[in-house]
């Protein structure tokens, strides 16, 4: 019986030693990981693939700890005020061995079909978006760590307040003058074309015009667009439809009634 007691005593001591040593070495290993050169980021690049904007953020992780880091996954989800996913990004790294360095990139996909379809208002209205960032990983295949944060970030619409604020008819030239304005609140330079289609009150197209548009971030765009009209179909009133199209996305139409008698 004494031998059994002794054996159990040693076994439990061994387990206690291992149990105490594991968190201590985890702590020391993590401390090494909090050194400055452990994680670094490169310059973000943007590409267009299958009607999706892919923002790629390269980064590296230098595992200076004593243990392998495995199942690293980083997820970023940008949600609109209704809680609908607007932008999603996901990165998974299976493992980083102790003492080794891994280069990877976090890819964020922006589905333009979805953005121009269900969330078209994001092109025209500034709003607040919720950014959910989740990072999870495993130390030594034992200790799981997950970080989750929820941030509110402002969204600047590229065509903020796109408005046809005035429509006049120039009888001398037979052109309809459309006054258009918007403000580029996005951080990107807007480079595309505005298409204006004029309809009479019988819903027939009586004029169509394209206007090249370039607006740097923060720029207030103001323009008068003269549109030649098919005078044979001209009526006293009608409506215009306004579209915006660029390589990256298209938005519209914005509808506005017009009348020769203001």
């Amino acid at each position, binding site marked *: 019986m004494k031998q059994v*007691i002794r054996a*159990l005593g040693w076994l439990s001591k061994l*387990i206690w030693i291992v149990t105490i040593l594991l968190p201590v070495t985890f702590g020391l290993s993590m401390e090494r990981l909090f050194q400055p050169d452990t994680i670094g980021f490169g310059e973000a690049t943007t590409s267009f693939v299958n009607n999706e904007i892919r923002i790629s953020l390269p980064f590296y992780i230098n595992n200076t700890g004593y243990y392998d880091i495995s199942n690293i996954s980083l997820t970023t989800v940008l949600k609109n005020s209704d809680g609908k996913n607007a932008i999603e990004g996901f990165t998974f790294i299976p493992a980083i061995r102790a003492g080794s360095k891994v280069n990877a990139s976090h890819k964020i996909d922006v589905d333009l079909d979805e953005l121009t379809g269900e969330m078209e208002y994001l092109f025209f209205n500034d709003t607040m978006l919720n950014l959910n960032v989740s990072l999870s990983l495993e130390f030594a295949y*034992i200790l*799981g*760590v*997950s*970080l989750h*944060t929820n*941030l509110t970030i402002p969204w600047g619409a590229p065509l903020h307040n796109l408005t046809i604020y005035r429509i006049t008819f120039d009888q001398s030239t037979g052109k309809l003058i459309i006054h258009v304005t918007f403000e580029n609140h996005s951080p990107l330079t807007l480079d595309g074309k505005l298409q204006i289609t004029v309809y009479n009150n019988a819903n027939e197209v009586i004029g169509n015009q394209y206007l090249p548009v370039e607006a740097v971030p923060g720029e207030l765009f103001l323009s008068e667009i003269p549109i030649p009209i098919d005078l044979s179909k001209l009526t006293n009133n009608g409506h215009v439809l306004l579209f915006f199209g660029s390589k990256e996305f298209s938005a519209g139409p914005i509808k506005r009634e017009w009348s020769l008698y203001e």
Partner: protein
Amino acid sequence: MNEVATMDWKSLLRRIVPRILKAVLWCLLIGVGFLLLESFLALFFFDFYPEAQKLFGIFTWTILVFAFLVKVSEGTIYKYMFMIGRSFFLILYFIYATNGGVLTVRASEFFEGAGLYITLQFAPIVVLLVLGSLLTMIKDIIQAINFLTETQV
């Protein structure tokens, strides 16, 4: 008759008082150890996980009480009962205090303005803690049986 009773009391006190003093001294030593550990943990851990301070207090006092009882009951079967009780408490404590090995803390102390939540999953370590306590408990039970056998022979 009174003289016999006084003699019994005296001999009982003579036996018990040194034991109590020894136990108190032992508890003081352990207490100092826990105090040092607490002040070390207060440097970084309690800010990060404030609930741990309360849990640490419960752990410290329970261990001290058990240490006192074990020391006082040295040489009796009660010593083993208290040791088994202590191991049983540790098993329940480790499971409860660690929430079964999944802890979520809000780390806004470090990242102001951001609602950062950190979840730690360390179930294998909790399994080891429980296993260690369980083995200690089994050992205590066998020791208790051994004690009974030896004292009855």
